[in-house]
């Protein structure tokens, strides 16, 4: 009992072929979009690789680029097959390859599903990398004279301005780090000497933040220094002051940005999987409707199209027996040879 049988006359076959051709070209465009998205994601990761400690994993964007190209190729081939399908002379040369093509499409769909899952799972690794990278970034903020780290200050300042965030978890991360280089500290000054002596490691720690933490929406000119000292500023209460500096931590801000990108790409891939499945179903109908034509030369005849030759359970059972016989054929030879030896 064929699965999902549909009767086709010439007009329906022609419409199916034309509709399927357009659908395949739509899938090619989706493949190009996926390729573009992969490139975009790669560029975004590169742009901020400094705050990710330069060891971010480019697995997902590379896979996206590869899968996008594969999708273009496969769907272009499908479109070509549809274009030739109504001309029996041209269709003959594709006929033998079609079963392999359908299997390849199935495999490709599975690959797309795996990539989509990766997009969601790799967000955890991005989170951890960001935490580590930002912590190091804040530590190396002052090292504008150390080769390899001279642009960390600029990168971190631009990141804090762009993403409207301050510090790793929040602005207090800046209180625990010396972010002013010793080159700009007057070591003969008493205040400086007191601060350096006040902690074990001899670091110049202050309750201040860099200017890039300032919030432009504050009605008051930005207060950067002596943040926890209410008496240092007129009419200032550090517990109730909300608008002065950014309250969000950069890890959260950057993570929500990247997870947004990755989730959207994952959902887009799921849509592509649905489109590909529709393509495959349409192609199967087209192939079977052309095969079941009583007389291939006479175009204007009725034929049947189906998705599976037998029902779902029977096809599944057939598949299992095929796999078993494949496995058993290896064993049979092994059983034979010992007998032959004895």
């Amino acid at each position, binding site marked *: 009992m064929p699965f999902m049988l549909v009767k086709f006359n010439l007009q329906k076959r022609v419409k199916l072929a034309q509709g399927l051709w357009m659908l395949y070209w739509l899938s090619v465009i989706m493949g190009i979009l996926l390729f573009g998205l992969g490139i975009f994601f790669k560029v975004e990761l590169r742009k901020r690789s400094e705050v990710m400690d330069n060891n971010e994993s480019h697995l997902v964007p590379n896979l996206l680029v590869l899968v996008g190209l594969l999708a273009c190729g496969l769907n272009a081939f499908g479109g070509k097959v549809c274009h030739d399908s109504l001309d029996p002379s041209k269709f003959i040369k594709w006929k033998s390859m079609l079963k392999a093509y359908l299997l390849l499409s199935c495999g490709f769909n599975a690959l797309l599903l795996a990539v989509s899952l990766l997009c969601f799972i790799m967000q955890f690794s991005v989170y951890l990398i960001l935490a580590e990278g930002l912590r190091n970034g804040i530590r190396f903020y002052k090292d504008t004279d150390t080769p390899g780290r001279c642009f960390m200050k*600029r990168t971190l300042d*631009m990141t804090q301005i762009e993403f409207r965030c301050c510090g790793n978890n929040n602005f207090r991360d800046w209180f625990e780090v010396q972010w002013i280089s010793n080159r700009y500290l007057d070591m003969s*000054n008493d205040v400086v000497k007191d601060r350096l002596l006040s902690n074990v490691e001899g670091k110049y720690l202050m309750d201040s933040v860099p*200017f890039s933490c*300032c919030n432009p929406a504050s*009605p*008051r*000119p930005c207060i*950067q220094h002596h943040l926890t000292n209410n008496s240092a500023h007129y*009419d200032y209460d550090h517990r109730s002051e909300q608008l002065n500096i950014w309250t969000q931590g950069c890890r959260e801000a950057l993570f929500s940005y990247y997870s947004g990108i990755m989730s959207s790409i994952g959902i887009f891939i799921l849509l592509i999987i649905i489109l590909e499945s529709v393509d495959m179903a349409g192609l199967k109908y087209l192939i079977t409707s052309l095969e079941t034509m009583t007389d291939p030369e006479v175009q204007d005849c009725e034929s049947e199209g189906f998705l599976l030759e037998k029902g779902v359970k029977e096809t599944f059972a057939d598949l299992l027996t095929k796999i078993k016989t494949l496995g058993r054929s290896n064993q049979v030879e092994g059983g034979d040879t010992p007998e032959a030896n004895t």
Partner: protein
Amino acid sequence: MVLLKMKFTQQRRVRLAQGLWLMSWFAVMCGAFVFCLGIYLKTELLRRDEVMENTEIHVVPNILMMVGLASIGTNWVATRVCQDSLDASRFPRWKVLLMAWFAAAVLLCCLLLAVVVLSYALQGRLEESLKVGLRNGIRFYKDTDVPGRCFQKETIDHLQMEFRCCGNNNFKDWFEVQWVSNRYLDFTSKDVKDRIRSNVDGRYLLDGVPFSCCNPASPRPCLQYHLTDNSAHYNYDYQSEELNLYNRGCRQALTDYYMDLMNSTGPGVLSVILIQMSVLFSLRYLQTAVEGAMALENPEGESEGYLLEKGVKETFKDVKAKVLDVLKFAQVDPAAAEPSPGNEEKTADTTTEKAATPTPAS
């Protein structure tokens, strides 16, 4: 003497019609491009509306948008004409419209040229507008509690950070203005009282700038206050410090940005003008060739296409004469009205004369 005559066989006419149809659709897309360009320019100008005093520069994107829409319509008409051109029954109805079409196409090209010229000519006005707008912005920076000005601070801060500039001409503009609101000044402090008394207007002026002037590329954490006092900061020389704040003034930065934008659209607009002119000339050739062919005994034979029936000078004289005729037609009526009462008098005289003369006869 016919201007730029060309011979057209039937095949050439067909090819011309097909080629012109494609080119007209391309010109429609160019018109859409010009429209989108106008919209983009207008949104960019509107985004910085708060630091501009007048909207004179908006004439450039307005004209671009109008011309874009008009060009889409005109070139769509051209595609319809091309489609009908090879059908002798449908072509004559376009005859009257084509004259108006040519005038419209020439007008569009002139307007596009005017846009290119204006975008250079209005640079001075843009700078003036920005100068006044930025001066006001800096003056009202502290008024975050005054309705209508509460977002001035945020606007100026975002502007300085985005365009990497400070102040109107340079950062010293901030020294001349009180940019810290009185709400945040401790009037019991000696320092504050000294500063307020140190100038005539009683303003709290300092040699400091807002945080948005800070340059992230500086190797040193940003110095915002006591900028002219070398001893206030360790290892600091006010005259030689270059990277601490942004050196550019915001007026210069914004003017450069908008001039770059308009200059980069210049080549695009010029190529749209070229395309429109070529559509114009090709349509004129098609019109004259098809009309010539329709007048022949054998419509499929050879015909001539030309740009102008007579030479340039003669066509100009003809057009002038026509225009004067139309103008005179408006004048002729009152001139004709005057002689008629004169004529009535004359006829009255002649009737009286005639009445006078028969009496001796009788």
